[in-house]
């Protein structure tokens, strides 16, 4: 049996706010298979983004174990987490997604620049991804010259540049209209499935769940399957 893309066991995240403690994630246990797409659904403040941030190495868990693609990251420090994010995960955020002074192709290539710097193979990969995403003719456009849907597609391309074990989508369609949102979700599904890459799609929109293999609900930091 292959190694799961994500194994979270008994993960807790507690924020200290003065004398009070806020439990953002409470004993969360979640496994995501190698090419599984999981929808993480919950209301605002339920802990969706916290879970995703811990899985992606942006935040550290207070307790519990997190293993991504066989790499245990629970005890990693800032430097190790930075390297982990470079190499093992891809991100598509809700609001801030592209570097405004880089064109579409450079927004993909920046991943290579920050990491191992493969050079030509990375450039070829960026061109291939842009082509697959239907953006070959937009490669030299700056983000300000792209539509909302095109920006999200570039962000998807960037998230796949480092050939990640797991891609984390945080409300990827929230800034798009329904039709464009569906197109983007279809694209996410086809890209993930064609690569055998796992994904977690954070959303509060139940319509998104149709494009995912499984839905996990979260309320007040507690996970529960559909």
């Amino acid at each position, binding site marked *: 049996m292959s190694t799961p893309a994500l194994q979270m066991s008994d993960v807790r995240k507690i924020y200290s706010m003065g004398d009070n403690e806020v439990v953002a994630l409470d004993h969360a246990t979640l496994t995501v298979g190698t090419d599984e797409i999981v929808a993480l659904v919950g209301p605002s403040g339920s802990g969706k983004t916290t879970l995703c*941030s811990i899985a992606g190495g942006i*935040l550290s868990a207070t307790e519990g174990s997190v293993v991504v693609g066989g790499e245990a990251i629970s005890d990693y420090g800032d430097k190790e987490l*930075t390297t982990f994010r470079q*190499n093992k995960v891809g*991100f598509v*955020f809700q609001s*801030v997604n592209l570097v405004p002074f880089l064109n579409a192709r450079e927004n993909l290539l920046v991943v290579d620049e*920050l990491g191992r710097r493969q050079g030509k193979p990375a450039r070829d990969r960026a061109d291939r991804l842009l082509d697959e995403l239907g953006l070959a003719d937009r490669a030299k456009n700056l983000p300000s010259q792209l539509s909302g849907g095109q920006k999200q597609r570039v962000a998807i391309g960037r998230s796949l540049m480092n050939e990640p074990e797991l891609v984390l989508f945080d409300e990827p369609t929230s800034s798009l209209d329904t039709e464009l949102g569906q197109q983007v979700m279809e694209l996410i599904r086809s890209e993930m499935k064609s690569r055998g890459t796992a994904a977690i799609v954070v959303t509060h929109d139940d319509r998104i769940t149709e494009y995912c293999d499984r839905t996990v609900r979260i309320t007040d930091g507690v996970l529960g399957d559909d």
Partner: protein
Amino acid sequence: MFLALKEMSRAKVRFGLLTVALGMLVFLILFQQSLQNGLLTSFVGAIRNQTAPVLVYSVDGQRVIQGSIITPDLEQLVTTADGLGDVGRIGQGTFSVTNADGELTDTTVLGYEQPLLGAPAELAEGRYPRAAGEAVGASNDADAGFGLGDTITIEPSGYEITIVGLADDVQLNAGATLFVAYDDYVAAVQSANPDAGTPLPNVLAAAPADGVTPEQLVANINGLSDDLDALTRSDAADETPGVAQVQQSFRVIFLLYGLVIPCVTGLFFLIITFQKSGALTLLRAIGAPARRLVTSLLFQAVLIVIAGYAIGLALYTPLSQRRLGGIQLRFETTAVIVWAIILFVLGIGSSLIAARRVLRIDPIEATTGGANR
């Protein structure tokens, strides 16, 4: 450097304006440095670049050659000073003259009794006076009717002085200056004012004996009388009334530049950092080490300081060869090097404030939208 160069290439106007602004500041600093040095040289170059290591004024003269009068008693007293090697008279007068171009103008004439005590230290052209009616002029005045071989006529007497040598940076009071033998000076004074009698020397030029420093000789002479005011050559130049004030004024100006430059570069990079905080947060979230982003920012700062300095230097170089009125400007190599170091340190140092902001970026803000705030 990928990020740094890409950003600069996409924001040419923004970065270009900062570079030009820095270039203009560099130009102003270097130009004013030349102006300061040219101004001071034209005021006291004749003192700074003459041969006597020590000049003795009367206290009443308040360190102005023409205002000082050395009485025979004081002159006799100076000759008794311990550590004195040699001593000679210097006289100074301002005369109306007709220069070689036929123009009537004011000229300072400095008469020295001994060539090694008061003559220009070095000649750029020609020779020292050997006969009556010969002078060394300032090369700065050569194009203004005081060139080599030109004859100057003191008015209204018609006493003629021919320039047989030229020396660099030997003006006094920012005007045409002639160095003549002391007897010629006396003759010039008497020709201009036949009733003047024999003028007293204005200052004494002294040299220490072997093994005695100019500073020791100054102390010994000043210890002889409260009416004597001996100064080393450099002190005599620096303490001429007005010199300290000019230096102080320029120091204040340079201090202001020293404040403006870090403010301009520091604020620029701080504003840029705030403006692109979203992009920086995103980059941190996708795995950019903070160190890499700081390096990128400092690389931009280094490029801008270097380019700004190059622009400033390119503007300054041709102007530094010119003459402003009676002031000869000069390319100040030391100032160029020192200011390059100062600006580099100030420019990069002030960018560290922005770098600190970059180091504080928390990648979690990419998920909360905090980077956009």
